[in-house]
């Protein structure tokens, strides 16, 4: 009994440590993808000095940030100013707990994983709001308020868009949801409207172009991050890219079959080989969506803050409700 508890605690500690360690290379890789992909889309070379074809540019940036002086504005509220990057980063890192990388490779396989995920990811808005308030800077304040308005509004269509999927699959557990997709086909085919709403809302939720209101550099300098420097800024930056990875991962798990291979013969394998096989497909699909987000950033301008809001409340929310309604009726009528 005691041994079992100890094992459980040990497993949990190991898993969280691994996940925290995973966030660092994830951020580096995505920043590198962004640097290189946007450069090639802009007909530039991009970074090409550090490592083969500039591979380690983002890593060097990361270490450079560590070495920078960490300044706090005179008038800033020191306590909360220091706390804010931590809050944002922890929200991103904590939501990684429930990401299903492969069969058997989930840090915490809750039966309410989906609820947990949205609850925790939403915490990052507190960090942004606190950062904006504590900086004692008008740009930061405007950015923080924008963050609060935007993320709170988009949380609703984001959450509602997957309720349809949950109703269909009858589970709130990520791995059970993926197993359901193994039997019934990817949810992409069952919930195309839900997928669309989820994708748009998730871009807004992680502040990616075209919804990067929060740190709109041509309007608000850097939004809530304006006064941050050194590793505190680095944490915000990291958290942003980790959140992009997490959102892409969740999108893949919910609608694109997670760790399942795109063909039915062996969609998944047993044992340790199966875990590796699952991890391969999960990361491949996730990075495809990361790539699409980067592609959007290179292509689209930014929407305005009022257009963003009216889209959330006037388009996405009603659409999500209709989607849920139709799904629920279909489940009852066709006894799915």
């Amino acid at each position, binding site marked *: 009994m005691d041994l079992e508890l100890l094992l459980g605690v040990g497993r949990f500690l190991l898993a969280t440590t691994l996940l925290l360690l995973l966030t660092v290379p994830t951020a580096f890789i995505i920043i590198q993808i962004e640097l290189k992909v946007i450069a090639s889309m802009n007909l530039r070379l991009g970074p090409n000095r550090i490592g083969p074809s500039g591979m380690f540019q983002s890593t060097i940036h990361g270490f450079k940030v560590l070495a920078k002086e960490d300044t706090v504005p005179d008038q800033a509220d020191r306590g909360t100013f220091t706390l804010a990057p931590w809050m944002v980063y922890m929200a991103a890192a904590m939501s990684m707990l429930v990401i299903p990388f492969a069969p058997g490779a989930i840090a915490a396989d809750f039966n309410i994983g989906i609820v947990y995920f949205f609850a925790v990811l939403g915490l990052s808005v507190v960090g942004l709001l606190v950062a904006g308030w504590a900086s004692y800077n008008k740009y930061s304040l405007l950015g923080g308020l924008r963050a609060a308005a935007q993320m709170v509004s988009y949380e609703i269509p984001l959450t509602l868009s997957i309720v349809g999927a949950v109703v269909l699959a009858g589970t709130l557990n990520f791995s059970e949801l993926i197993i359901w997709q193994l039997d019934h086909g990817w949810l992409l085919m069952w919930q195309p409207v839900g997928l669309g709403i989820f994708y748009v809302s998730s871009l807004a939720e992680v502040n990616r172009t075209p919804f990067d209101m929060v740190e709109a550099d*041509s*309007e608000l300098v850097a939004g809530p991050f304006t006064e941050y420097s050194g590793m505190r800024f680095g944490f915000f930056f990291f958290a942003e890219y980790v959140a992009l990875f997490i959102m892409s991962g969740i999108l893949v798990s919910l609608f694109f079959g997670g760790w399942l291979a795109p063909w039915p013969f062996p969609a998944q394998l047993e044992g340790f080989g199966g875990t590796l096989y699952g991890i391969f497909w999960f990361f491949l699909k996730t990075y495809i969506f990361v790539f699409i987000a980067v592609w959007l950033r290179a292509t689209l301008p930014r929407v305005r803050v*009022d257009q963003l809001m009216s889209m959330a409340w006037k388009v996405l929310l009603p659409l999500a409700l209709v989607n849920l309604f139709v799904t629920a009726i279909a489940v009852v009528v066709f006894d799915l």
Partner: protein
Amino acid sequence: MTGIDPETRIPDPIELDRAEEERLRAVAGLTPVRASGGEYAGFEQVGIPDRPPQTEREREVYTLDEGEMLVNMGPQHPSTHGVMRLVVKVRGEIIVDIDPVLGYLHRGIEKLCENATYTTVLTYVDPMDYLSTMHNEHAPAIAFEKLYGVKAPPRAEYIRALVVELNRIFSHGLMMGFLALDMGGITPILYAFINRDEIVDMLSAISGQRMLFNFFRVGGVNFDTNDEFLSRLGTWRGNVMKNIEMNERMITENEIFRARTIDMGTLTGQQAISLGVTGPNLRACGVPFDVRKAKPYSIYHELEFDVITQQGGDSYARYLQRIAEIKQSIHLIDQIIDKMPHGSVQAQVPGIIRPRPGRAYGAVESPRGLYSVYSISDGGPNPYRFRMRDPSFISLQALPKLMPGRLVADTMAVMASLDPVMGGVDK
């Protein structure tokens, strides 16, 4: 220790500062620090003289109602197109009022020009509006030629028109890019710079410099065309339409771009005329005024072109106007190359010009509007008075009229659509 003669000691720098301070205080009409015989008071107590009394307009902007705050955009804001400060009065994110504060890039170019000879004035005007350097040189060249009574040879006039239209193309191209950049689109500006680099390389082949070309002379141009210029021109002409359309495809039909520019910052023709706005910004309101047509200079009376106008008067119309003008300029360049005569490119003009006393006005259609020079000669080697009308400065006046009631996010987008260049605004 060897004694130092107290009579010859070096004065203490602090003593010097005190003497200077006493002098300044006397000038400012303040009581001397040590008048009371007390200890030295130090710099803190000198204080800053009071601000001059506010004007009515300043009082209107700087008086805050409940729930309003002032945000300083600039001079170090990432997207104010140079160093300009916008004091924005906001209520939440809604703009109540705007006060543009200019002068951060003032270099006193007009005064510099008044102390330079007529030939060297053409080098001083280069860095004014640094995106339309050729136009900057064209207007004083016209004015000085009128003043001195010399005419540039026909080939020189054709080369002038050619380089000026090339300059217009890259300036308008950059405006497309900057407009998208200020809305968060990062790619169009880089495509615009690729196009600009091609033109700038071409112009540096003919003039010898990449940005501040210094190509015009009183009575002609500095160099005739050369092989490198012509071969670059040919290559560029071959793929310019493709490049422009590639960039245009990213912007023109983009839903987000349209939503952010249509009906945004709308100027009516009447408003634009009364503000003195000229150039593409005026033509985008449907007013067909183009200096090249209204008062043809150089060789524009020999070329076939129409004055393009748009109807909207909003940011989107201003953007479309620029695209249309780029295409028109390419059409003009084709005609210029077709008709270019042979001959000399420089009239006989002495090194130091001493025009007879008189006054002259030269106006050109720069990418930002009516750019003109008014110069008075007193018979000496340098202009007695040299005054420039810069179109960016006047376009910028429209900003406080356009912005109230809009959002902070629109400030930069509307300003980019007016396309001001701070080097020209502040002179």
